[in-house]
């Protein structure tokens, strides 16, 4: 479909570099699905839903700069929901969110709590100022915090927080965050791959499975339509955690 024009009805500054935008309509996403956000005249970029009617944006480049320049009453063109989201399963689940990657997990966690599932969250960030949606996570269950600088919670990366948890207790683990973090967590959960769902990030142009930019080596899985959420065992042996491609298709070293 063509982009739908959505009006911004609320803007919340979540952290120094992250803002949430709420729209005048819900696109009815499954948590983990994404939408293509057209900043008119600038670019179109994929974003996860952080609310049924909203997105949470980190200032990283020109398109997000333009989004930050919008005020309440401004509008964006939206195309979505797209892709395959998370599948809720089990009675006790763990969410592991890093940085702005916590956004779709907050939506997922709320849906889980509503469904009577026991939710634990491991929330990781560089410092306490960057912790995203701490209140939303606290409202739905126990939260373990890690910060790289030790300004709050456990000092260290997300993996440091894993030690504080009995991983066997969780029926399902949901990941979203920087790729090295997710690869690291998956690595530390050896044997549990079929119980882990990760929302991963790749460059793509179309969001409909044709531009090919997001095809994972070596199988050619298209992240934009077959993901962005994958069970960790499907990511084993792929480029995930090793490299990605840029807009031209050239391979880039792993980020983070």
């Amino acid at each position, binding site marked *: *479909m*063509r*982009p739908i*024009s959505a009006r911004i009805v609320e803007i919340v500054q979540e952290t120094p570099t992250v803002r949430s935008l709420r729209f005048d309509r819900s696109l009815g996403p499954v948590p983990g699905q994404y939408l*293509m956000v*057209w900043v*008119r*005249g*600038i*670019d*179109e*970029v994929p974003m996860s839903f952080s609310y049924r009617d909203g997105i949470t944006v980190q200032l990283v480049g020109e398109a997000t700069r333009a989004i930050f320049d919008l005020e309440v009453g401004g*509008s964006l*063109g939206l*195309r979505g929901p797209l892709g395959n989201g998370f599948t809720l399963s089990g009675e006790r689940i763990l969410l592991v969110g890093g940085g702005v990657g916590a956004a779709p997990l907050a939506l997922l966690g709320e849906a889980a709590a509503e469904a009577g599932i026991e939710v634990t969250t491991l929330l990781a960030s560089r410092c306490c100022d960057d912790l995203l949606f701490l209140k939303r996570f606290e409202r739905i269950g126990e939260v373990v915090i890690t910060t790289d600088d030790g300004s709050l919670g456990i000092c260290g990366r997300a993996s440091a927080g894993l030690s504080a948890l009995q991983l066997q207790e969780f029926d399902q683990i949901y990941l979203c965050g920087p790729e090295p973090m997710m690869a690291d967590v998956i690595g530390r959960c050896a044997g549990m791959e079929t119980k882990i769902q990760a929302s991963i990030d790749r460059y793509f*142009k*179309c*969001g*409909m*499975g*044709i*531009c*090919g*930019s997001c*095809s*994972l*080596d*070596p*199988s*050619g899985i*298209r992240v934009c*339509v077959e993901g962005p959420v994958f069970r960790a065992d499907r990511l084993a042996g792929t480029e995930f955690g090793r490299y990605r*491609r*840029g*807009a*031209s*298709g*050239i391979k880039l070293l792993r980020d983070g």
Partner: protein
Amino acid sequence: MANRRRIPLPGEEPSSGSLLSSPDDSPVMASLSGEVGGIRMESPVMLAAGILGTTGASLRRAALAGAGAVVTKSVGVAPREGHRGPTVVQVEGGLLNAMGLPNPSYRNFQEEIDIGRGGGAPVVASIFGAGAEEFVEVATGLDADGFELNLSCPHAERLGAEIGCEACNVEAITRAVKEEVNVPVWVKLTPNVADVVGLGLAAERGGADGVVAINTLRAMAIDVESGMPILGNRFGGLSGPAIKPVAVRCVYDLASALEIPVIGVGGIASWEDAAEMMMAGARGVQVGTALGMVEGYGVFRSIAAGLSAYLDRKGIGMEELVGLARRAR
């Protein structure tokens, strides 16, 4: 072909009534293998250029999914990131896109072709350039099973259709590449001209082993809420079911005038679409937009299965199918 029979005339009963049954003397499914534009393939249903073929993995996956050959995304002399988004928008009956020829340059592409070949189907490299020299540089810099010259991209300045709409350019570039490579060379033509046949004849004179028709139609979509052109590039190319009747017409005209084979592309999503295109004269077909709009990679097998069943039901071979509409009166 094992069994060739007279095609039933219009109004005559086909030799077998049901779509899925075969005539008694044809217990096996009709073979779809053959040579298309100088390249031997198991099925005439190929992956079109510009769709998915950015990486070796996706080329390989298309081949494993049954594509008879796979055409890469167009590759040029230097890396390009392509246009800003939106690069694609769904419109009535199709897609409008302006990707902007993103590619890692041929210098970073041989590995992808080699991986693609792992799928077992020929890999045809789609290449573009600002002139004959660049085309030659790219073609001689790559080892592929064939080349498809993109002389028709409608949304890149000074590339594609901007040079491809002149017959003399088509002929010169085709000849230049042909002189330097020893694999088949196809020329993909733009329909955004008064006389696509003139371009096809130019490709033929230049020594092309086949022409591919059509690339997308010049088009545009505007966001009614804001008045902004939707594509980042403002303009783009229309593909999908909407353009199929235009493609069929171009293929018919080209096949009527050219000696070299025509490969049909434009809106093919089903075996009926493929059959229609082949009846118009296409020796093979390419599938692109359907991969995003309908069933994904499964489209190659479903088209091939439908074609094969159709040939069985009619008791004819591929040779009879190709160009049938030009012979039917």
